[in-house]
């Protein structure tokens, strides 16, 4: 496994795995409601990871995942450099890293007690993640599209296209993901799906980055 593939896989497994394990532990311990959140929207992601052991797993896993996201954007920059101009890459990386830092800060301030949590930081951080990530992924998609036309092999292009299309459809149709303290069922459903799609987008690079390696010259 190349370095690039390691980062792509770790970004996906850690983020999605953390959410899955948190939800499983939360429902088992009675701190989260049991349902299919992708369909029912009975809970949002944040509330699954506040109380009890689920809270520890969520905070540890998501902060670690955010650190991997930051490296993911650095690897993406390396992969596209030579096919994209420096300014576009910088804009892409800036919004990607900003989004990851937003989620990192938003997760770090979560506490077991709802009343004690700094909701201002959490809500701003989570919204920065979803909105910053949408901008970064869109810029990324345009750069990947151009690079592919210029001859760069992009095995995951079809999946990336579908994911970007769905993310934008969600944004246009449902005004995207807007995280709040108490979210409606519809917003919660959108949040779960958007998070999954962003996670899969990170994973798709696993097939693109076979040759992104650390090499000594």
């Amino acid at each position, binding site marked *: 496994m190349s370095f690039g593939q390691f980062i792509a896989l770790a970004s996906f497994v850690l983020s999605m795995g953390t959410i899955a394990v948190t939800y499983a532990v939360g429902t088992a311990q009675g701190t989260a409601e049991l349902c299919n959140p992708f369909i029912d929207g009975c809970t949002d992601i944040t509330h699954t990871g506040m109380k009890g052991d689920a809270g520890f*797993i969520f905070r540890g896993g998501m902060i*670690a995942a955010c650190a991997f996201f930051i490296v993911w954007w650095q690897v993406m920059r390396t*992969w596209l450099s030579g096919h994209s101009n420096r300014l576009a890459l910088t804009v892409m990386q800036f919004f990607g890293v900003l989004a990851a830092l937003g989620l990192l800060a938003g997760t770090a301030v979560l506490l077991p007690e709802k009343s004690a949590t700094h909701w201002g930081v959490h809500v701003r951080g989570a919204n920065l993640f979803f909105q910053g990530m949408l901008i970064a992924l869109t810029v990324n998609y345009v750069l990947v599209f151009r690079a592919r036309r210029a001859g760069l092999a992009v095995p995951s292009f079809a999946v990336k296209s579908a994911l970007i299309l769905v993310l934008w459809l969600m944004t246009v149709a449902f005004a995207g993901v807007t995280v709040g303290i108490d979210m409606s069922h519809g917003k919660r459903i959108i949040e779960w799906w958007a998070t999954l799609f962003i996670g899969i987008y990170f994973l798709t690079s696993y097939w693109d980055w076979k040759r992104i390696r*650390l090499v*000594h010259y």
Partner: protein
Amino acid sequence: MTLPQRIALVALVLPIISIASSYFMSANAGHVDWCLPYIDGCTTITATGIFYPAAYVFRAGLISSAVVFIIWWYCVRAWLESVGHPQHHPWIHRIVTFAIIASMLLVASIAVLGEHMEPPSEHRFLWRFHTTTAGLFFLITALCQIMMTWRMRQLQDDLGIKFSRIASKQILAALQLLLLAAFMLILIFDLKSDGVEEIFEWWLATFSCLYFYTTYHDWRDFRLTRREQQPLQEASL
């Protein structure tokens, strides 16, 4: 600066800034004493990350640092397999595996910290969990760094690494070994006194972080690349 060089730099700077910031915030709020913990041992590293808002900085900074350590160990493995006569080194795989597990223990250790652990007498399990995982992180990381230095010294010719590049690693590994040995002796002969454990903890953490930084100069020509490119046209970081 190449990507591995950035990793080596961040592995030193991020944990130190995180701990220093949370110590400053905690001491400012009166939760821990003002002192020079390397000499006085007035507080543990953990104690600086219990009370909010210092705990937020501590949590975010040290969990992110653990990820940087994991990537650093990945870089070490890739580097040692590509210098000199590139070959498979099973020993480095074993060391890196243990060290990565140790960094995961650090994540677990930090994730449970917070004001909810107060008072300690009512949350013995969480404290025991934190102490065990943090202790294992320090111990395993130090041992892995010592083992790595020892093997690098043994295979110096095969790896084609200059002595000057191992010298700083040897000094830090020797200091860590001395600290661990002295701490074991203190425990065995029951010579513990107030602040000794804390002093050991601060120094061991600092030596570990400094060790991560020693590869900064080693990794000047070690970079992340797309292999299909020609070396001169490399898009490298």
